[in-house]
């Protein structure tokens, strides 16, 4: 029964909603990043969450345990694919070998959507395996737009681009990050994955207003929210994904819900990974906040079927 419920997971019914779900926005509900530590528990416990996000590169292998669990879990839950190697801002040629692998995996998984980051990850065929920020100017904008268009043409679908946490600002930048992200999305006709934690981290590191960022993002482009933890060193903040979501990020999530309405939300935890039930409890916090802001009357009691409510 659970399996059927999740395969057919749709947007929760909006009872007396303050903020309606845009009819053209695929809404998945509340999800988690699928991590190796939780493979077994997910299959055994069939937890009541709406969807999983998987890191594409982790499953670009031929077979074995990772692929087995991936497909077994996909049978039960909607999924989205989240990549870290598109390197959309790099000056290296587009890596079509990588894109072919991405397309093969997407054909296998039939995800609701694919996302990656507004960044570059390497140059001269050398990979930093990090999400490096771009200079925000017209030259970079034009470069990224062309590449997003080429990638979308190759994949035959729109992608989502995520704002990254950053620690440096280039002298060559002449516009804000949010203006740059908006322009990329508008000109290349792609969607936005808004990482609420990354906005907070970058705002602290570059001394801009989180609210200005949210208000600067076009409402009709956002398809997904990320929530995550960070490490606060006082003078600066590092996006470590190894802590619970911090209170200021929950506050910002509330603001984001007010601006964008109910958007598919997930918690990204990449290190110091706690038991699955801890993350489910944290996801319930997101659900509770979303319910308070958007009033969609979704049950949050653990064990209730969150996908089957109307």
């Amino acid at each position: 029964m659970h399996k059927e419920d999740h395969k057919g997971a749709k947007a929760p019914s909006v009872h007396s909603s303050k903020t309606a779900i845009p009819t053209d926005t695929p809404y998945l509900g509340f999800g988690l990043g699928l991590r190796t530590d939780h493979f077994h528990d997910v299959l055994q416990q069939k937890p009541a969450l709406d969807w999983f996000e998987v890191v594409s590169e982790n499953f670009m292998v031929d077979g074995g345990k990772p692929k087995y669990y991936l497909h077994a879990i996909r049978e039960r839950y909607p999924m989205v694919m989240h990549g870290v190697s598109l390197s959309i801002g790099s000056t290296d040629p587009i890596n079509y070998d990588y894109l072919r692998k991405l397309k093969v995996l997407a054909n296998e998984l039939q995800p609701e959507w694919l996302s990656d980051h507004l960044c570059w990850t390497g140059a001269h065929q050398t990979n930093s395996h990090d999400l490096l920020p771009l200079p925000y100017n017209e030259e970079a904008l034009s470069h990224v737009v062309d590449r997003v268009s080429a990638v979308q043409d190759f994949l035959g679908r729109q992608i989502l681009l995520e704002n990254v946490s950053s620690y440096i600002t280039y002298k060559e930048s002449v516009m804000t990050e949010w203006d740059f992200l908006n322009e990329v999305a508008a000109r290349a006709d792609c969607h936005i994955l808004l990482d609420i934690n990354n906005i907070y981290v970058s705002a602290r590191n570059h001394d801009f207003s989180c609210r200005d960022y949210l208000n600067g993002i076009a409402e009709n482009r956002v398809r997904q929210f990320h929530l995550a933890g960070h490490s606060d060193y006082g003078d600066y903040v590092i996006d470590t994904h190894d802590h619970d979501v911090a209170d200021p990020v929950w506050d910002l999530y509330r603001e984001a819900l007010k601006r964008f309405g109910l958007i598919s939300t997930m918690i990204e935890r990449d290190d110091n990974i706690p038991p699955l039930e801890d993350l489910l409890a944290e996801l319930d916090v997101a659900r509770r906040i979303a319910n308070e802001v958007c009033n969609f009357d979704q049950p949050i009691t653990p064990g209730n079927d969150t996908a089957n409510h109307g």
Partner: protein
Amino acid sequence: MGFLTASDGRISEHVIDQGNIDKSTRLNIYKNAYETRLKEVIDTDHNVLSFYLGDELFDEMVSVFRQQHPSHNTSLRNYADQLPQFLKETLPFSEHPIISEIATFERLLMTAFDSQDATRFCQDDLHVVPTENWPELTFKFHPSVQVFYSKWNSVESWQALKSEKIPEPANRLSNCWLLWRNEERLTEFRSLNEEELSLIKLIVAGSSFSTLCEQLLQKNDEKDVPALALNYLSGWLNDGILRNI
């Protein structure tokens, strides 16, 4: 990238100072993350090797390998593919060939872990083959199957460390090992004797079951060969190392 891989400071000219944090501190956040990330990958993939080397030597290995081998892959899964060769050629590690062997063994375990899936050839499949067709029967190995030749007590040392025991000092010990992923998707390995290795080589070459039996005749009494051949075949089926073709 030059800053991350070779501490080339030219990027600094393009970065501004902001607030209380100077640009050097800001850039070093990226450099520390880069170095830590690659070290963690090697540590995860070569967990026993890191114990074998100890912290100081492991850090030295990572530092030199990272400088000589920037990542050219989109996936970190393949970052340390060149590590065994690096250890074979680079002092001081090259003076102790067992180190490279342990690294090779660990990478083969990784290959067995996530290689392609395939349906196994099992006892039931064998039973439906008419007996008269057995001589012409050929076999193929499951894609996860690997053969590893060791010249040192590398696997024995790996096993000792995995069991949190102190390994014997390095010593020459020629052996051959079969590695594969079983039906429960767990990685297994066992040693191969000379006879079984010769049969495995024949299977890889596409030889038939009758050729395998002829091979067994070279060192065994004729009356013992049918039981011996069946014994080997049964073992392979139970291990799940043959694929259905």
